[in-house]
């Protein structure tokens, strides 16, 4: 899993909370996305039915995962798609590099792919002297600014148009400063059109891989995805192994859930279904299509019946949009590729608890995410599960780094709490003592944190237990 490096979660959070503009941008953006989703699913009963269907379809896919991957591979191969398997991101990167070298391609044009972020592909290729060109507008913007995406679906959502104007003006040759969004988009179109026309290799992710027919399905609005997968000689598709579904008929309900949840659309501009490279009599399309199936810890996640549900995810981003924590700290604060609620459960499982277990603390378990997840991942339950794994009281942890948080001090606190709550006399004594202190409870530990923004809670002089006794409520 690599060396244990820590990321400064607390520092990130502090910085983000102080960044008024970031918080304003995020709040506005999340409100818009939440509203759009609400509008596109007007019938609550129908939505619940659809979610249940999505959950069942993805569960069925997980249930048959190895068989479906083999079927996918067989059909893809028969169609002329070359299938590669990568156990980890290093392997996946080498596969892509290999293809680039074989075609002597100095650059690759990229459609949006979270898996390629997981691979840190751009950085890897840059080290090999190969240029990776992001073509999704949001990714294009942040790439120019040497940033990573802050949201799964709208990667540049933390940026204002004046910031984009500055980035384009400063980083693109011969580009005047303009805040007009149409002009900014036209600038990006011009810059990238040349790249699409000249690229030898294009990269994409995969939204759904259909085992029944060996088909790769991609959704998008801009057209850059189709450009990357159609114009160059070579198309490389990278996907997490959990993205396979069994049948064509599984696709429409999942598509509806994905586009509705991600951007509030009934359907995206394009649904692109790729089944083979250019055939002999065709005039265009890539001459080679490669599919890289990436594991990177997913097979391990699959091994636990509860944690397995993490892999139901269809990467719609709606959990981020509804999360009261995400809207306040933004994607970068999470320090890893996948932010938000899904990031909180996925990252510790991929990176290990020592590195990323802290992410599971950044949740009040409010349940807003689980309520909207289109495939009904019980995200709060999985966050709680990862907290259990972090302490591993019962020595049953399956996630790497289980028990890393065990410490005597905290254990004693909870043992004390348990004792007080099991033995009525101790409970009474404790609450009476605290009650007697009134507003003079010492501001240490948790109380210190609490009182930064709140007054000390005033414990009552007589507890409910006492009052009940004194006021004659039956206490059998």
């Amino acid at each position, binding site marked *: 899993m690599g060396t244990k490096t820590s990321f400064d979660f607390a520092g990130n*959070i*502090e910085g983000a*909370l102080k960044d008024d503009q970031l918080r304003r941008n995020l709040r506005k953006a999340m409100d818009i996305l939440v509203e759009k989703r609400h509008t596109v699913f007007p019938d609550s009963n129908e939505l619940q039915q659809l979610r249940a269907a999505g959950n069942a379809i993805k569960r069925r896919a997980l249930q048959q995962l190895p068989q479906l991957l083999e079927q996918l591979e067989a059909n893809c191969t028969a169609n002329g798609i070359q299938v590669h398997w990568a156990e980890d991101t290093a392997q996946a990167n080498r596969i892509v590099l290999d293809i680039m070298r074989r075609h002597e391609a100095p650059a690759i044009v990229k459609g949006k792919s979270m898996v390629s972020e997981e691979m840190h592909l751009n950085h890897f290729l840059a080290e090999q002297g190969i240029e990776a060109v992001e073509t999704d507008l949001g990714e294009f913007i942040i790439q120019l600014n040497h940033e990573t995406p802050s949201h799964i679906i709208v990667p540049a959502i933390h940026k204002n148009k004046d910031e984009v104007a500055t980035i384009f003006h400063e980083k693109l040759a011969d580009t005047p400063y303009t805040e007009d969004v149409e002009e900014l988009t036209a600038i990006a179109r011009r810059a990238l059109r040349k790249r699409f026309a000249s690229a030898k290799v294009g990269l994409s992710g995969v939204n759904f891989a259909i085992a029944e027919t060996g088909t790769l399905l991609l959704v998008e609005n801009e057209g850059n995805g189709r450009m990357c997968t159609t114009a160059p000689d070579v198309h490389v598709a990278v996907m997490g192994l959990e993205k396979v579904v069994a049948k064509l008929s599984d696709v429409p309900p999942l598509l509806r859930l994905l586009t509705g949840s991600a951007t509030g659309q009934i359907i995206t501009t394009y649904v692109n279904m790729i089944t083979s490279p250019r055939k002999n009599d065709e005039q265009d399309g890539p001459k080679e299509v490669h599919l890289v199936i990436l594991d990177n810890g997913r097979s391990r996640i699959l091994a636990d019946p509860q944690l397995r549900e993490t892999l139901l995810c269809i990467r719609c981003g709606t959990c981020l949009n509804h999360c*009261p*924590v995400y809207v*306040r*700290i933004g994607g970068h604060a999470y320090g890893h590729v996948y932010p938000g609620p899904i990031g909180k459960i996925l990252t510790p499982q991929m990176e290990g608890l020592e590195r990323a277990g802290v992410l599971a*603390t*950044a*949740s*009040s*378990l*409010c*349940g*807003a995410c*689980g*309520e909207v997840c289109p495939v009904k991942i019980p995200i709060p339950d999985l966050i*709680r599960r990862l*907290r*259990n*794994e972090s*302490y591993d*009281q*019962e020595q049953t942890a399956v996630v790497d780094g289980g028990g890393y*948080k065990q410490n005597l001090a905290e*254990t004693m606190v*909870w043992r004390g*709490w*348990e004792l007080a*709550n*099991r033995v*009525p006399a101790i*409970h009474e004594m404790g*609450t009476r003592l*605290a*009650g007697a202190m009134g507003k003079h409870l010492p501001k240490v530990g*948790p109380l210190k*944190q*609490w*009182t*930064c*923004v*709140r*007054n*000390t*809670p*005033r*414990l*009552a002089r*007589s*507890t*409910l*237990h006492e*009052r*009940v*006794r004194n006021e004659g*409520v*039956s*206490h*059998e």
Partner: protein
Amino acid sequence: MPPRTNGDQPNKVYFFGTCLMDAVYPDAGIAAIRLLQSQGVEVVFPPQQSCCGQPAYNSGFVKQARAVARTQIQAFAKPYPIVVPSGSCAGMMKHHYPDLFAGRKEEAAARRFAGRVYELFEYLVTVLKATFEDRGDPTTVTWHSSCHALREMNVVQHAKTLIAQLKNVTLVELARETECCGFGGTFAVKQPAISAAMVKDKVADIRRTGATTLLAGDCGCLMNITGAMAHDGVAVEGRHLAEFLWERTNGH
């Protein structure tokens, strides 16, 4: 979801006060008990009760959570309904006790216990079919629900039904009514900065309603929000709906 009933109108119920109500808001506890008694029901308060165990359960300390949960199950041994003035604690007992004891010898007992749990307003409205008459002066209130009351127990509708019965009470809803207040039990302590940001926004939302009273159904949220309001000198009073309801309808 059709209201659960016990067959005929029950004449005895258990009351689970919750640890926070016990220590911080006992008046609200007494008020809740009086509300139940006013409907002709005998309320039984087992003295061995303490905490539902949720703080430990949510923090990764399942062993301690289980031990404390066991105490509650044993304390509420008779087959009476268990009425809980908190959607959060009710949710813990109803939905998570079976998980806590899954595969263990107490599983059946935990399930039976969980099946008897009702949130207070749910019980008043759907089982007791209580109606109340407002004897107070005109006032404007706003309402905040705990996340578990909203999403796990689905009881906000019942709280609002009761508020709507009070003719002189005007309810102005929060702009972000369904957003978490940031309490989250140990979350407020483990991620204090984020929690603080959340409660500040909640307080700003409350101020914007112009209400003089914040009503809540959960002592955790109440403690969190009123603590923040007091810190910032916001002149809005926070009350548990049970206490408010009892006062309004009994002319205190």
